[in-house]
């Protein structure tokens, strides 16, 4: 497993916890292998308006000097013309004009510095101030974009990186020249729309003169624009909060994005998430009830209603993935103890946050945080209150990363609330598969209230249960 | 013991490994670890004991004991060894010679096996890591028991 995988994964379920988890694993990596940072990212660097920028070398076909290019009438000012690149006609975009940065005017016969950018479907040329050189860095050194670099809209920046005491802003060309932002379409003679249309996605970001005659407000409201915003929020959630959009949470994310957009627009704030705080605010409604606390009596009752209480199984096994400090696990143990008094219970609980899970076996809390319902299992100790051995002995707490093989037996119940969404998508899939393997036929899986089980062939929602609760098809 | 106290201190160190002047205690060391074998033999030799044999597992230990008998006074027996463990070897040695003086060498965490060995007739035990003082003290105790 690459170090990157581990550093982005986290099972934290509270705002902040996710970030904390990330830090821990990063540190641990560092402590282990002497980190001679590996160079796994190369970028072509250049300057624009006096600042240093970079573009992923994978997107750069070549470094070029543009001598003569053909002016195209009715194009926005940042489209300097078209250029014949060994037989291919490509558009030439002046990045300085595009981002409304100062550009020194050169004589017509003086060549311009530039790059040939290669994207999935097409190529184009960009003019910059000075192409410097290729710089190799470690991907891990790339920091998320910060509003301080707001010369260029954050959404076109994939990150910033410091290298030899210079700060480089890494541009995301795929996003800037988004899909059918196809400059190639510009030359489509059948097109009657004003010449800014093909680049409408970024209309709102441009100075008015660049988008004339199309009024700025129109493109702001376009579906494309909204999609770009959504995609950007999606990505920043991963960066700032370790939240990874997938089938597991897509429904919620769509809904939340619309609410968020309205909320933010009503207070005249940017829809984009510019910081960890923004991301936390965005995710606030995501978390399931009683997160990082003992379950409320109300939640305990709701939870108990999904258990096969009538059947009184002789043995009952439960798996609590992403147990954190153990509040959820103890709540689960207490709920099961009361709901299934006759059953032999065993609960496996694990987390890959060592600090959190280390304290779980001997969790100490203050009186009053445990619902009345469970007070009889609480014993007073020297440092505070804890649970009696009757309850503690039901649980095995493990320092374990569920993306690694798990040695747990087959389970009757799997509680994995708000955990999958905080793993990279590949890991989510692997863990969902593992949950499927470890679940007995008819077993119950409890995801977060805003999460969905993406494999309907194996899992069916339980009627009348809170959302996120599934039964394995027998 | 009284007589020993009357000897000048300078000679005392050389006395530990000798049952009578010029007559050393003869020791068989049974241990799968070359390190431990070397360590014990070095400690004992320096005190005048004579290491008359070494064995790397229980089975070999029992055979060596029978070969050497009656010219052997003491066995140090590791508990954890491949093929035949030390407790089984102890049992076989005691079967052969109920007066055998066997000192068990145990890793940490083997209390149950140590107890079992003492009940079966081991004279004493030493828990690793070994050091000079501990080894000599326990061995002298078992020889004088």
């Amino acid at each position, binding site marked *: 497993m690459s170090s990157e995988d581990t550093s982005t994964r986290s099972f934290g379920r509270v705002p902040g916890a996710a970030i904390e988890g990330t830090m821990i694993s990063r540190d641990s990596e560092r402590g*282990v292998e002497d980190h001679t940072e590996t160079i796994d990212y190369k970028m072509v660097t250049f300057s624009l308006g006096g600042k240093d920028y970079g573009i992923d070398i994978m997107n750069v076909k070549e470094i070029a000097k543009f001598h003569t290019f053909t002016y195209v009438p009715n194009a926005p000012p940042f489209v300097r013309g078209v250029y014949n690149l060994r037989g291919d006609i490509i558009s030439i975009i002046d990045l300085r004009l595009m981002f409304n940065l100062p550009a020194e005017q050169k004589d017509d016969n003086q060549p311009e510095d530039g790059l040939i950018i290669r994207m999935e479907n097409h190529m184009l040329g960009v003019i910059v101030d000075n192409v410097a050189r290729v710089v190799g860095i470690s991907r891990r050194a790339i920091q998320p974009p910060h509003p301080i670099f707001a010369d260029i809209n954050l959404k076109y920046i994939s990150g910033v990186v410091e290298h030899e005491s210079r700060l480089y802003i890494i541009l995301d060309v795929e996003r800037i020249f988004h899909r059918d932002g196809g400059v190639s379409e510009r030359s489509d003679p059948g097109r009657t729309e004003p010449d800014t249309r093909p680049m409408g996605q970024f209309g709102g970001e441009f100075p008015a003169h660049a988008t004339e005659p199309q009024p700025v407000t129109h493109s702001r409201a376009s579906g494309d624009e909204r999609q770009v915003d959504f995609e950007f929020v999606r990505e920043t959630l991963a960066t700032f909060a370790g939240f990874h959009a997938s089938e597991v949470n897509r429904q919620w994310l769509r809904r939340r994005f619309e609410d968020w957009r309205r909320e933010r627009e009503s207070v005249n704030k940017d829809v984009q998430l510019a910081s960890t705080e923004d991301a936390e605010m965005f995710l606030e409604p995501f978390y399931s009830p009683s997160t990082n606390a003992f379950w409320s009596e109300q939640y305990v009752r709701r939870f108990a209603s999904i258990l096969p209480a009538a059947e009184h199984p002789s043995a009952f096994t439960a798996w609590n993935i992403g147990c954190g400090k153990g509040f959820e696990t103890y709540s689960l143990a207490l709920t099961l103890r009361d709901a299934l008094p006759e059953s032999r219970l065993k609960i496996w609980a694990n987390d890959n946050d060592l600090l959190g899970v*280390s304290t779980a076996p001997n969790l100490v809390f203050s009186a009053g945080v445990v619902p009345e319902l469970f007070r009889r299992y609480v014993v007073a100790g020297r440092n505070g209150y804890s649970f009696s051995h009757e309850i503690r002995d039901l649980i095995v707490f493990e320092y374990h990363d569920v993306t690694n093989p798990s040695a747990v037996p087959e389970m009757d119940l799997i509680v994995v609330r708000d955990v999958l969404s905080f793993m990279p998508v590949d890991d989510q899939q692997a863990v969902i598969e593992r949950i499927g393997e470890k679940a007995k036929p008819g077993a119950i899986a409890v995801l977060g209230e805003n999460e969905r089980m993406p494999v309907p062939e194996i899992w069916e929602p339980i009627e009348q249960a809170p959302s996120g609760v599934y039964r394995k098809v027998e | 013991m009284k007589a020993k106290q009357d000897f000048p201190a300078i000679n005392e160190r050389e006395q530990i490994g000798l049952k009578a002047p010029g007559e050393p205690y003869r020791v068989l060391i049974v241990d799968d670890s070359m390190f431990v074998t070397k360590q014990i033999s070095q400690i004992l030799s320096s005190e005048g004991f004579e290491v008359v044999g070494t064995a790397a597992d229980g089975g070999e230990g029992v055979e060596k004991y029978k070969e050497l008998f009656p010219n052997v006074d003491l066995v140090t027996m590791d508990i954890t060894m491949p093929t035949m463990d030390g407790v089984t070897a102890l049992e076989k040695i005691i079967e052969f010679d109920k007066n055998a003086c066997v000192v068990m060498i145990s890793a940490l965490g083997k209390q149950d096996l140590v107890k079992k060995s003492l009940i079966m007739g081991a004279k004493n035990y030493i828990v690793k*890591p070994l050091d000079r003082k501990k080894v000599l003290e326990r061995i002298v105790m078992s020889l004088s028991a």
Partner: protein
Amino acid sequence: MRVEYINPFVESAYSVIQEVLNVEVKRGELYLKSSSIPVLGVAAIVGLAGDVEGRVLFDMTRESALKVANDMLKSMDMDQIDSLNDMGRATITELANMITGQAVTKLHNLGFKFDLTPPAIFTGDNMEVSDPGVEALIVPMEIPQGKIEINVAIRERT
């Protein structure tokens, strides 16, 4: 790996190495690893049985192993060695045994029953240990003689 097992191993490794070699031990952050693990050159392995099944692997480079062995021999007034011969390997194995033994004793006191199986040692270049289906806890330690990585994989018998 069960949370209660972690500290006994970490503390034993720390205290035994510090005591036997009389050096300062720097601890690295613990982490989890599955899949194959490259071996630095010398790997001593101690098996665990009882309530659990598993193994503890002590990994270091040949150079570090030789230095560690000599320092350990010296501390016990024993003869020095000039290559990682049988005696050297036995010495490293003994260190592994001492650490694991102390950990198992601590675990005993906490009510967990573990048994040690006789240790084995492997040396060679470009070795890899792979136990498919096993997640291991890595305890990295840095001493003046070099790096010692302790790799603990234990699972409950279910």
